[in-house]
């Protein structure tokens, strides 16, 4: 039998799910601009975090706009950053990532837009007196959340370095092949050009 208690718990979980954290990784082509919109209630704290994973100089232009088109945060050619703000008014907030300054480098951008506080464990809302077990569960949850955050950072840094290393590996290969070909062509060419100088003198001498 499903008791009303379960429904209340269910309800609490659903309310908590209103706290949104959206993590997206997307491609940003050259000279493109990508905008995302998010509705935020008044006095809610939101955090915007971004990092360029690959491409060009690993930089991107970021612009955060409020509902009345006012600029809340703007960065030009940033590699990564994090910005926390409290919404002054309720409405639609816009985040734009622009690669318009770049004509050929295509980028991979990671974005995390978190609205509201990190969600507590379900069932803890309304409970005034916590048992020791509950308190420790809560502190474990907090630590785990920070572990996840650090892990994400680590993962992105690692992805950035790994992609750069792969790029380097490939470039070393191509450069070495090209350079070897150059040396061969130049050496043979040199000899023939030098021979050519002496070959042309002969008819001149015979005259």
């Amino acid at each position, binding site marked *: 039998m499903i008791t009303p208690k379960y429904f209340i*718990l*269910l309800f609490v979980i659903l309310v908590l799910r209103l706290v949104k954290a959206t993590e997206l990784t997307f491609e940003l082509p050259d000279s493109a601009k990508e905008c995302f919109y998010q509705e935020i209630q008044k006095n809610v704290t939101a955090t915007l975090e971004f990092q360029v994973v690959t491409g060009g100089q690993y930089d991107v232009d970021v612009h955060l706009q409020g509902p009345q088109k006012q600029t809340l945060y703007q960065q030009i050619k940033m590699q990564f950053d994090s910005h926390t703000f409290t919404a002054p008014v309720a409405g639609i907030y816009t985040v734009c990532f622009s690669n318009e300054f770049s004509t050929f480098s295509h980028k991979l951008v990671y974005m995390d837009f978190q609205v509201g506080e990190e969600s507590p464990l379900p069932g803890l809302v309304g409970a005034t007196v916590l048992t020791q077990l509950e308190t420790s569960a809560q502190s474990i949850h907090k630590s785990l959340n920070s572990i996840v955050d650090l892990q994400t950072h680590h993962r992105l840094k*690692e992805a950035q370095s790994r992609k750069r290393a792969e790029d380097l590996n490939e470039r070393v290969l191509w450069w070495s092949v090209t350079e070897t070909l150059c040396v061969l062509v130049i050496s043979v060419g040199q000899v023939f050009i030098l021979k050519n100088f002496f070959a042309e003198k002969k008819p001149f001498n015979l005259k």
Partner: protein
Amino acid sequence: MLLKSIFSVFVIFVVIDLSNALYFHIGETERKCFIEEIPDETNVIVNYKVELYDPRSGGFMPSSPGIGMHVEVRDPDDKTILSRVYSSEGKISFTSHTPGEHVICMYSNSSAWFSGSQLRVHLDIQVGEHAINYGEVVQKEKLSDLQLRIRQLLDQVEQITKEQNYQRYREERFRQTSESTNSRVLWWSVTQTAVLLLMGAWQMKHLKSFFEAKKLV
């Protein structure tokens, strides 16, 4: 009666849940891809809702029955895991089998030749333990508050462990790349020196015999 009213509130919250999510605009024929770098055996849930631009009211229609979305999910080996046409609102879930970058692409089934109208796409991607619906777990397994909390902690720890294993795998790949670069640089420098010496020797020998033949020396 009470249960019924609570249930309707529940339904309303599920609806609000998505309209509160992040959204973006795409053209009717545009294609939008997102990348999720995830460990193996991880659940991913994608919730989306598409709204078509209504030129008459200047806003977006809350429901657009004519519009469907193609959703394509590709795994790190570029194999298609999922490719289907869904309606204007939907929920897709899949489980990864190989760790790596999964690409989730969305485009509308519109037959417009030029990007005619604008579409607003609400999107919410939940990965790992975030994809678990604890409401369902409570209903199914009849857990108490504390049991549920412990359950959530366990799920979270499990996800962290998976991520860490994946990290190890990626570190290995990274190391292999670096070692390969290292050995390539070494071998190339050796080869290059050999090529230079050989070419120098050949040039000298060839030119010497040439000058001797021409009686220049």
